[in-house]
């Protein structure tokens, strides 16, 4: 099993979640009001009310077989709207 961690702007969240399920993942979890720093600068909590929005952290646990499809669906979105994604290994409890 694989674990995917995505960090992206709240604004793109809907699109990303739709892409995740469309790619065949059976579930995902979302944490909002995430702040942080990345290649395109700092996102602070104070900006939450502005149009920039804060970040969201999306966690997806998928079967190894689905990873490719999810990656393929997400990479263009992350490239277009910003955000980063990482993969690691996991197994069900």
């Amino acid at each position, binding site marked *: 099993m694989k674990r995917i961690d995505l960090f992206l702007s709240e604004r793109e969240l809907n699109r990303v979640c739709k892409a995740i399920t469309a790619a065949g993942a059976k579930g995902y979890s979302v944490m909002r009001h995430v702040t942080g720093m990345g290649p395109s600068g700092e996102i602070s909590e104070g900006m939450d*009310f502005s149009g920039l929005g804060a970040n969201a952290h999306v966690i997806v646990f998928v079967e190894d077989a689905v990873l490719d499809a999810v990656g393929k669906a997400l990479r263009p979105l992350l490239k277009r709207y910003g955000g980063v994604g990482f993969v690691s290994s996991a197994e069900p409890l």
Partner: protein
Amino acid sequence: MQSSLVLQNLLSAPVLFFFLGILGVLVGSDLEIPSPLPKLFSLYLLLAIGFKGGMELAHSGLGPQVLLTIGAAVVMSLLVPLTSFLLLRLRLDGYNAAAIAASYGSISAVTFITAESFLNVLEVNFDGFMVAALALMESPAIVVGVILAKLSAPAEDAESVRDQENGGDQEGSGSLRWREVLQEAFLNGSVYLLIGSLVIGYVVAAFSPAGLEKMDPFTEKLFYGALCFFLLDMGIVAAQRLRDLRQTGAFLIGFSLLAPPVHALLGLLVSALLGLSQGNTLLFMVLCASASYIAVPAAMRMTVPQANPSLYISTALGLTFPFNVVVGIPLYMALTRHFIPVG
């Protein structure tokens, strides 16, 4: 008299709390208003200002002067981005120029509210229909911004964007993209809440006026204090943005401080032509002079992702907003008093 206006503004509670927020960041206090509390105040202010505006619109009616003023406001929100764009294009690429131009064509509701409070303290009258103008100036600027961005996009880039789009979220044709732009422009949460509350205020005032009095403690009485609280946070956020200005460059800093008074003068001209009252003139000027840091960035981020958000957010929020709240409003009022006859 001019200097007394500046002082009266500087020594008002909302502006003082704004300073308190700025100062806190500068001296290194850890004071913060944790998210999502600022959102609560921002939603509240939009709801309250919309409701009150709608209510007063129902009382004043939709006469020719009202429609003319609103029409002129919409025209300004189409014009300002165009001229801003031409100027910004001197130094910036098309995407960033378009996104910033859209922000300056649109408005800042909090600047408008602060101006209203200022008028209240001066006991100068203004009309509820100015809120309708406010509400209708957000969307056109967004649409213009997106068009400008598309027009200035290099051919292959536009192509590749469409491809990515197709590959990425399976959304298909170019027409679908337009649906997205219009949705961001007209159904953006803050635009929607403002217009919705305006309509509700109108309907309640027209059809069940008994409800007005019951809304009053929430939308009217509480308003000034809530504005102070929110401006405290705006001060913190604006000061945090100041740090980003290093990467913004002198050109953009100059733009964000000169655009407001220039646009305000344009607004003054139009107001004089329309024969607006002193109070309405100030509000009209403030609408032209202010820049959006909520609706427009939200829309640009989705529709012009090639632009760098920190450029349009930092200028609108870190410089133009403080400039208008602290210096602009009394300055525009002085000009109003000079050029617009009383009553």
